């Protein structure tokens, strides 16, 4: 099963869609979690997920904003979507009935 950070990375990549690349994913994770995302953790996790076949990466176009340097583009594969879905289902099942889940649902309703 996926790890926590792997799930965050896949989720951010799916949310960003065609604009998913290293810096954007990092910014998305930081804004979602409120925690700093280490570039070392990001790129090593990208490699690990790519080896598992959960996403694909390739070098995109360079931009002037990046000093003429290319981006590492990311696209989640069908296997990656399935893995993230399984992780989400597992977390949801595990959270049923616990205090922070019932509190959250009460706040929402």
């Amino acid at each position, binding site marked *: 099963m996926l790890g926590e950070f792997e799930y965050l990375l896949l989720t951010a990549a799916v949310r960003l869609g065609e604009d998913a690349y*290293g810096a954007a994913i*990092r910014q998305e994770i930081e804004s979602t979690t409120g925690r700093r995302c280490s*570039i070392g*953790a990001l790129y*090593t996790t990208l490699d690990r997920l790519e080896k598992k076949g959960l996403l694909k990466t390739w070098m995109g176009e360079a931009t002037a*904003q*990046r000093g003429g*340097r*290319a981006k*590492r583009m990311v696209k989640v594969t069908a296997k990656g979507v399935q893995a993230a879905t399984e992780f989400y289902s597992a977390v949801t099942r595990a959270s049923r009935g616990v205090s922070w889940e019932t509190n959250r649902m009460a706040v929402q309703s």
Partner: protein
Amino acid sequence: MNRICWWLETLSRVLDPDERAAVLGDFAESGDTARQALRGLLGLILRRQAALWKDWQPWLALLGVAVVIGPRLSHMSGALLFPIYMDVRTYWQHGVLYGTGLSTREEAVIFLCQGLALLVWSWTGGFAIGSLSRRTVWVTGPLYFLFGLYPLLLTLPSLILLPLRILLVSTDYQKELLLLPWALLAILQAALFVLPAISGVRQGVRRLALTLPQAGSLAAVIVALVAAATWTGGWQRAAMVRWSGGTWDPSVGWQNRLFVFAFVSWPAAYLLARAFFRRHAKSVHA
């Protein structure tokens, strides 16, 4: 951070070119400070390097060559050059050569055989390090050189302080100047070991492997040099035995010499085996 500091660019050269471009571009785009970028880059480099050490090749280069063979070769070069040092020092002090019991011709043959063997062993060990640990060579390479240089490093502080000692402390400057031949020999020792080792490492990183004919030729040369070094190593022993009338035999037997020389030759066997299996794999896939 809009502009990449030159030291970040330099440090990032450890990464693969694509990853380097992606990471530096991310830093340029992000709002990270230089300090945050440095921490992030160091973290990535450490993770990448740690991943490399999960394989066996860097460990073989480190423990099998740098740590084990390096000191052995350094010790051998010291033993080879010690008679020269004694000759220079004795002549400097007393005007006569140090008596080793060997003729000049014998001393020249010993120096040639064992000196050549040392050059080839140093180069082969360096090549093995370069080909085994290409991406971790910045760790294994310097360690290999360090073990070859340690006699010179030990001498260096005394050499640097020598002018001060002569001027301020010593009452016998000639005694102090005896350090100079030792320093020169330490430099020569570094040249016999370190220069071929550096060349070997560079070739190993660039080429990764020798072809089968090249590896075979190298192995044949090393076998011949091991035999020559073992044989000539016994001449000094014989001279000592003659000089002492059979009562003093300080040197090791030929079996021990052969074992040591064969041991430091294992990188050549590795390169030969690797070339053989590469050729075999190519012919299977063809």
